[in-house]
């Protein structure tokens, strides 16, 4: 039977193993495989494991629980080792790397922020800031909607204005929150947000970060901001800063979409 791997942590982690059940139905009990100073959180892998809602939540919940007690390096969903020995082999082989990551991420959590436009509110904003668009809208309305060409022209202007607003807001989201975070990771932008950004936040600085989120929200009432955290540092397990401060690649645009599959 193969072994499902949830994450890697220090063997000194205070709350091992997780009381939360793992993947499978009934949920597989979580086991801990120790090697050197490291520990892998694993369970038996159920036959025919599929990426179903329940399984994804199980993976997420195990890591959330363990992550609440101390730093854990989360695996991406669905990592299977042929057996336990393979897992401890990996821990032994790359001990230095994982220990470095655990030390670097100790005491830190991830907050993922997704922003999208509230449609009506952003149209109001565009109209209020652009007299020409507003005038054409009024004219079209009085003409019973306007001709095809007039509607096309209006629509084109509105789309350009909304896209510009998307880019501006994406930058605002990152720049407003960046100072309250230790690191920033811009997520794949193909999935329908104008910004999808993860922030690495020190546990001590969570309040400051959330205050910054509230300020962002107040200053941008046309944005739908979705805050997800505190999470184990999913976006920061690989070494090196994911994005140098100041760059902004999270502007949603299908032309630059990157596949998130590897």
């Amino acid at each position, binding site marked *: 039977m193969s072994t499902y791997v949830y994450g890697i942590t220090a063997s000194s982690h205070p709350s091992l193993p997780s009381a939360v059940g793992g993947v499978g139905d009934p949920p597989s009990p979580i086991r801990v495989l120790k090697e050197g100073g490291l520990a892998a959180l694993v369970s038996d892998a159920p036959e025919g494991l599929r990426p179903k809602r329940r399984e994804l939540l199980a993976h997420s919940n195990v890591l959330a629980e363990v992550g609440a007690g101390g730093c854990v390096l989360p695996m991406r969903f669905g990592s299977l080792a042929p057996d336990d020995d393979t897992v401890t082999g990996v821990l032994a082989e790359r001990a230095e790397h994982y220990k470095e990551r655990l030390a670097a991420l100790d005491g830190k959590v991830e907050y993922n922020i997704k922003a999208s436009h509230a449609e009506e509110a952003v149209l109001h904003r565009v109209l209020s800031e652009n007299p020409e668009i507003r005038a054409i809208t009024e004219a079209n309305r009085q003409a019973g909607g306007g001709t095809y060409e007039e509607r096309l022209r*209006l629509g084109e202007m*509105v789309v350009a204005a909304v896209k510009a607003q998307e880019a501006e807001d994406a930058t605002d989201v990152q720049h407003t929150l960046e100072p309250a975070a230790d690191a920033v*990771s811009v997520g794949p932008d193909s999935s329908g947000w104008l910004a999808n950004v993860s922030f690495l936040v020190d546990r001590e600085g969570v309040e400051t970060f959330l205050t910054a989120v509230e300020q962002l929200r107040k200053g941008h009432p046309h944005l739908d901001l979705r805050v997800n955290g505190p999470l184990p540092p999913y976006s920061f397990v690989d070494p090196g800063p994911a994005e140098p401060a100041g760059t902004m690649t999270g502007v949603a645009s299908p032309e630059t*979409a990157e596949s*998130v599959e590897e």
Partner: protein
Amino acid sequence: MTVVPAQQTGGGGGSSGLYDVLELVLDRGLVIDAFVRVSLVGIEILKIDVRVVVASVDTYLRFAEACNRLDLEAGPRKNPGLPDLVGEMTESGARGKSKGALSGAAETISDAFKQARDERDEGEAQPKPRARKATASRRKEEQE
């Protein structure tokens, strides 16, 4: 459907979707080459609401229509927000595709993956019509 994630999740107007919670689990995290990954082919459980504005005649006309309908006298105000639940999100996303000004589309993650690849390969920005159809029929199955 009741899903209570272990983390706090909140959004503008209190909206959040399951996809928001799980995207990270699927897309990020450690990948170790000595392990294999469960196939994500056919993943059909998560929905996203595509709200990226795409430049096209279709979009222009929908935006013009949206402006036409907009109550200009009312001040800018916040939308009530996206529905909380994935099922509702799917519904509204599918409808938004044809009616909303933003190009709302409910899609499976695999659709999104496929689409991202297609778009990159073909340099085309518009979502594929067949993806929408597939989503609509698939949606029924998932709600059962």
